């Protein structure tokens, strides 16, 4: 059966036009029907059964009609019927019998026998009859006949189960004919397919059962399987076809793995290095047959190609990529197993070409495809994977031929290459005989290439790009050389992991060795000695040229420029695709590789951009080790680009990395760069965030507490990450209120220079008064040269952990609490009762600090009008508790400086004042007792205390102190004798809370009075000294009489003189005046005027109130108020104007109660005759109802004492509410 492989292949390739439908043209109708038939294919829709016998809708099923007489069908019958089934897929799936008959007899005699004959041959065939009626519809008999014939045909060939006939009217085709035709055709194809599938499966089962028998032949199995798969494929059942191939692959890998037999692997033909995993027709299968199976190398690719083809047909490029990627990886492993039989680096080349082919085809099939975003991302991820796989292999090849020094020794390259084993050829390629020139060139290239120096002179051991030293590996693999050779010996102490460096190191260390290496003639003995590195490269390059058949790859490896071009293309491809996928990190990191390439080409701008992305990625997630590797590169780009801000920021970031990542020397260099630039000629100040480098925190312990308005001193610990001391030109700290809206807290400025030591520094800042609230540290800003730095970095305690800057944690612990305004001191008056007026008295102030020191406080005492501070006296300060101290201090200009000892204790401050009252005290008559008003004796003292650290706290208060005369004097005439002698009682009421001792009293009488004993002005009974307790009364009697000397009045008032002493405590109130005390006698004279009145005269005018005319007064009603004035006696000549012939009157009425309609004030004439009388009438309107005072009539010019009210007017009158008025009512 296996012999049919070639035939099978050729048949398969020829069956590209779909399923075959044979046409048995019985009545020579084909030429006229052909066009109509062929217009039906591909079948638009057909329902077929898949492998599991489930109906599947298949669209555009390709089919071709072939006449049974056609040579294509005739020649097919194989000679050997046994294996006919192998090619069954190409046999007709249906037979259409194309017949026509006009006559019933003809049908019976000719057509029916013929059809029976045709159909009797094979029972398997699926067929149906198309009866073509050529009768003209106009020709009725003919069409009737045709109908009859067709009916007969149906009767003969249709069965109950199946209708096999359809009728086509040539001249007027029925519209449903073609649908009928299609469905019949599809039915035939379905049935045939089912039968064949069943058959194939039975065969396959049979064969599978023999799998472990010696006669098992994979090729047979393959042909059967592939026939089935191909049949499915022809029927557009791609899914089923794919499954067949999958099973085939599984079966192959199971059988290929069976041990025992040695089989050729393949892959040694020219062109095999070009992966054919997408090209099923790459090699004839017959060429790869080996015994009873296929060569693995070709066959695996073939199967994958078939699968890929079907997947593309199914529109699943993603699956091709996914399967392709894993296929490439697994196949690469297979290649590795057979590597010693394959050409040098065959595996790498194959992977490169396979990846490129997969990329190309999947991308071209993907284009325009609409996929859900998830799938799309996955697709791009796979593309990226393919690109990077290809890239790695490409780098490996490049390294082998000596471009290693051009490959960036980055973590990504190192991870990919250093864990990838070297190729393991049976024998490492040797140097071709005439390659001395190439070796020299390579030597030169290696020497010329300088290992890229890291910026800032950072010395790092470069990451390896090789699993082990190439030189050693190459020489070891040259079977005839021993391991220990000269270069190895030298390497053992020059082994720094970088293969490309070895040679240069050798050259510098061992000149004799170098001369031997570089001298041309010694090349002849290369086979006997270990190869040098450049020889290894040249030999590898030569071997590679033999391996690679793809001109593109050859070209890419031909020169450094081409290599870089290809390398860039692959890296970019991988990065771009990863960017579109979920794998952003992969993309960004490859951007870093692109950046390195840009940098090398001098495209610094682009390099910087890419480096920035990579740095952002690493720093964002705190991968400091990786960041430390790439950040110097970015810094270098920025330096070249003169991007000062960027460069500074990079320096800061370098400094803020874990200090273990760089040497101290390097870190010092970063700082030096920073300082150089900051103090250099930068045009504009550069703002920079140094949160990770300079952190700060408040001092431990409770927060600083300040009273409102107090300035303070805040201590902040600043942690500097700089390796050396750094000078900060100024430093500002913002505090932010921990609660409430922050309305722009002003930063605390410190203009002085600060030098930060590495590590912890304590900085003291003067704190201006802040608003009440609690504050946390905000930001620290400052300047280093032109550099304006700003730090938000808080560290809780101790040096900041390096990954602090990932999360800015705002500290919650407040560093400052400014308390809400509260009284800090209280000053009250120590004196509770009145002091003596016009005498020097002590006033005490109780100064009580409320948990606040008054140190350095100054008290301003400002005496108000009528009060004078006696500054010639010292002020006394005594402790509230007497033990606390006593001191006398001067007062100057109303200011008292408080001594230190009073700052924390309650003290009483006494100062002397004198309240001045110019007017003399006046006694009152007992008839009109009049208490002296307190307000008259009230004096104000404004106090202002400045205290606090900077005298910023101000306490202001005005206190009132009352002063009073010692006595209140009232007089009374207690008795009056007929001879005009009056007994005058003078009552003294003590006004102070002190004991008064009256030592003496005398009365200077006014004119019109005289003492009974003309010489003695003293009281009638002398009981001095008279002691008057606080608030008590005493009386003195004087005997006086009326006297008139007719002289001009010289003294209007009498004056009572009292000589007294006072015994009082200054803490209570009035006390002995200071001066009196000084003089020693302690006696004071108090004078008071007394107005003595002559006895009252008879009244000369009588005013009478006349009753109202109406009974009741009403609001709003006019009423006449009448008074009668009557002269009672003749006015005396000397009596004043009160008794002229006209009288001034005035009506006094409360304007709220009354409206006066007439003249309120005026003169009326009143005769001087005794008994003359007049009546005054004033019209008034009461305004409110109720009991109100009536208007009063006054006579201003006549003294009240001269007026007698007769009859007296009523106290109150009743006013009724107004009568209801309807005039304001609006009718409803």
């Amino acid at each position, binding site marked *: 059966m296996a012999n049919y492989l070639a035939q099978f292949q050729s048949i398969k390739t020829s069956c590209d036009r779909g399923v075959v439908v044979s046409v048995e043209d019985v009545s020579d109708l084909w030429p006229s029907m052909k066009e109509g038939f062929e217009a039906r294919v591909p079948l638009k829709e057909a329902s077929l059964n898949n492998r599991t016998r489930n109906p599947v809708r298949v669209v555009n099923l390709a089919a071709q009609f072939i006449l049974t007489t056609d040579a294509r069908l005739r020649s097919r019958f194989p000679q050997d019927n046994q294996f006919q089934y192998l090619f069954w897929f190409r046999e007709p799936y249906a037979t259409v019998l194309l017949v026509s008959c006009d006559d019933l007899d003809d049908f019976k005699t000719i057509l029916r026998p013929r059809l029976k004959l045709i159909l009797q041959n094979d029972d398997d065939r699926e067929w149906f009859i198309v009866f073509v009626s050529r009768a003209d519809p106009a020709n009725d008999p003919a069409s009737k006949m045709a109908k009859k014939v067709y009916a007969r045909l149906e009767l003969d060939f249709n069965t109950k189960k199946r209708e096999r006939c359809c009728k086509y009217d040539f001249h007027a085709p029925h519209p449903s004919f073609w649908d009928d035709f299609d469905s019949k055709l599809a039915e035939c194809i379905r049935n045939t397919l089912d039968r064949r599938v069943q058959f194939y499966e039975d065969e396959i089962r049979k064969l599978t059962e023999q799998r472990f028998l010696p006669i098992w032949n994979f090729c047979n199995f393959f042909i059967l399987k592939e026939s089935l798969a191909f049949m499915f494929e022809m029927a557009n059942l791609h899914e089923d076809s794919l499954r067949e191939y999958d099973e085939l692959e599984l079966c192959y890998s199971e059988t290929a793995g069976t041990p025992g037999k040695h089989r050729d692997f393949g892959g040694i033909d020219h062109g095999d290095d070009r992966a054919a995993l997408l090209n099923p027709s790459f090699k004839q299968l017959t060429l790869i047959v080996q015994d009873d199976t296929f060569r693995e190398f070709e066959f695996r690719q073939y199967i994958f190609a078939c699968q890929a083809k079907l997947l593309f047909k199914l529109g699943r490029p993603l699956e091709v990529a996914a399967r392709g990627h894993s296929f490439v990886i697994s196949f*690469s492993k297979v290649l590795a197993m057979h590597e010693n039989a394959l050409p040098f680096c065959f595996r790498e080349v194959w992977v490169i070409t396979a990846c490129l082919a997969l990329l190309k085809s999947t991308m071209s099939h993907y284009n325009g495809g609409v996929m859900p975003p998830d799938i799309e991302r996955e697709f791009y991820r796979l593309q990226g994977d393919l690109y990077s796989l290809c890239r790695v292999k490409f780098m490996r090849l490049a390294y082998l031929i000596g471009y290693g020094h051009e490959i960036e020794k980055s973590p990504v390259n190192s991870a990919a290459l250093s864990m990838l084993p070297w190729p393991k050829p049976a024998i490492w390629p040797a140097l071709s005989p005439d390659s001395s020139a190439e070796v020299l060139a390579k030597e030169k290239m290696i020497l010329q290439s300088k290992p890229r120096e890291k910026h800032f002179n950072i010395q790092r051991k470069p990451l390896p790009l090789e699993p082990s030293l190439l030189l050693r590996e190459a020489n070891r693999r040259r079977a005839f050389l021993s391991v220990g050779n000269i270069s190895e010996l030298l390497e053992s102490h020059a082994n720094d992991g970088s293969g490309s460096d070895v040679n240069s190191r050798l050259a510098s260390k061992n000149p004799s060795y170098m001369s031997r290496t570089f001298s041309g003639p010694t090349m002849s003995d290369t086979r006997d000695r270990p190869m040098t590195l450049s020889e290894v490269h040249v030999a590898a390059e030569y071997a590679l040229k033999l391996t690679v058949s793809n001109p593109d790859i050859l070209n890419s490896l031909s020169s450094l420029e081409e290599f870089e071009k290809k390398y860039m293309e692959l890296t970019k491809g991988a990065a771009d695709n990863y960017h579109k996928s979920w*794998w952003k990190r992969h993309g960004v990191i490859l951007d870093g590789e692109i950046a390195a390439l840009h940098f090398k080409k001098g495209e610094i701008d682009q390099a910087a951009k890419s480096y920035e992305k990579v740095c952002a990625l690493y720093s964002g997630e705190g991968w400091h080790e990786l960041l430390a590797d790439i950040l110097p590169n970015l810094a270098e780009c920025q330096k070249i680009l003169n991007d000062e801000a960027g460069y500074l920021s990079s320096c800061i970031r370098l400094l803020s990395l874990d200090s273990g990542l760089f040497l101290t020397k390097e870190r010092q260099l970063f700082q030096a760069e920073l300082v150089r630039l900051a103090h250099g000629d930068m045009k504009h100040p550069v703002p920079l965030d140094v949160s990770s480098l300079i952190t700060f925190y408040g001092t431990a312990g409770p927060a600083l507490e300040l009273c409102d308005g107090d300035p303070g001193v805040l201590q902040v610990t600043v942690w500097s990450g700089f390796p050396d001391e750094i000078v900060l030109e100024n430093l500002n700290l913002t505090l932010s209120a921990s609660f409430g809206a922050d309305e722009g807290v002003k930063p605390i400025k410190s203009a002085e220079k600060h030098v930060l030591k590495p590590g912890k520094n304590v900085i003291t800042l003067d704190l201006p008064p802040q608003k009440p609230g609690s504050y946390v540290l905000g930001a620290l800003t400052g300047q280093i040269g032109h550099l304006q730095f700003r730090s938000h970095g808080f560290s809780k305690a101790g040096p900041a952990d390096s990954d602090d800057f990932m999360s800015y944690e705002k500290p919650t612990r407040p560093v400052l609490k400014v308390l809400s305004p509260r009284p800090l001191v209280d000053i009250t008056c120590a004196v509770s009762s009145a002091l003596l007026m016009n005498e020097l008295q002590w006033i005490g102030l109780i100064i009580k600090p409320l948990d606040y020191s008054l140190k350095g406080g100054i008290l301003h005492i400002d005496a108000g009008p009528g009060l004078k501070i006696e500054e010639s006296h010292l002020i006394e300060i005594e402790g509230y508790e007497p033990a606390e101290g006593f001191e006398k201090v001067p007062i100057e200009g109303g200011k008292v400086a408080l001594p230190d000892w009073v700052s924390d204790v309650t003290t009483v401050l006494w100062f002397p004042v004198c309240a001045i009252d110019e007017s003399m005290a006046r006694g009152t008559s007992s008839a009109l007792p009049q208490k002296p008003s307190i307000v008259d004796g009230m004096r104000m003292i404004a106090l202002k205390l400045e205290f606090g650290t900077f005298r910023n706290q101000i306490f202001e208060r005005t206190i009132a102190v009352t002063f009073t005369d010692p006595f209140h004097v009232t007089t009374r005439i207690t008795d009056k004798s007929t001879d005009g002698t009056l007994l005058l009682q003078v009552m003294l009421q003590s006004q102070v809370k002190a004991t008064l001792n009256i030592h003496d009293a005398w009365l200077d009488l006014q004119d019109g009075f005289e003492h009974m004993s003309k010489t003695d002005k003293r009281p009638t009974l002398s009981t001095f000294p008279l002691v008057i307790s606080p608030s008590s009364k005493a009386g003195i009697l004087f005997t006086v009489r009326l006297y008139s000397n007719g002289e001009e009045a010289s003294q209007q008032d009498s004056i009572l003189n009292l000589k007294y002493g006072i015994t009082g405590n200054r803490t209570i109130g009035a006390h002995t005046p200071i001066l009196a005390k000084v003089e020693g006698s302690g006696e004071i004279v108090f004078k008071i005027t007394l107005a003595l009145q002559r006895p009252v005269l008879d009244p000369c005018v009588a005013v009478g109130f006349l009753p109202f005319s109406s009974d009741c007064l009403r609001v709003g009603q006019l009423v006449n108020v009448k008074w009668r004035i009557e002269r009672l006696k003749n006015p005396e000549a000397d009596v004043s104007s009160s008794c002229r012939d006209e009288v001034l009157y005035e009506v006094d009425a409360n304007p709220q109660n009354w409206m006066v309609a007439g003249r309120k004030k005026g003169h009326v004439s009143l005769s001087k005759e005794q008994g003359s009388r007049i009546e005054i009438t004033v019209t008034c309107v009461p305004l409110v109802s109720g009991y109100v005072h009536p208007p009063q009539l006054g006579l201003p010019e006549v003294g009240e004492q001269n007026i007698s009210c007769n009859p007296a007017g009523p106290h109150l009158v009743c006013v009724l509410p107004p009568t209801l008025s309807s005039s304001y009512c609006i009718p409803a």
Partner: protein
Amino acid sequence: MIVCVAVVGHQNNPLYLQSFTGSDDALKLHHIVHCSLDVIDERVNNPKRSASTLNETFLGLLYPTENYKVYGYLTNTKVKLIMVTTDLDVKDADVRSFFRKFHAAYVDAVCNPFHVPGKKITSNSFSERVGTIVRSFGPSMTL
């Protein structure tokens, strides 16, 4: 053999990384671990595609490359444990048990009252314990 184990915090920040290659090339392992976060992110953020493994802490093989394999494990605090091995023939069950031990060690390390959560693990005893777990993993192979 296991070449590297790592603990990565929930913000994808490295908390612990130990290389067992013996040579001074830890940076490339940093790179491998960092890149494998892509895969973890993808799996965690695409629950649709990994519905079956969503409730499991063991994430399985993250990264099949030709030369090494990366396995991942996600704790319920979103801390990732990552292991890189050059052993290409590893049984899942072995890796699972490895991660279970590794996770237990990690939990003990962060239970240390002197450990600041979210900061790198600097405990020596943790390193030693991890070293023991790594050495006991599978049959030891040479590079």
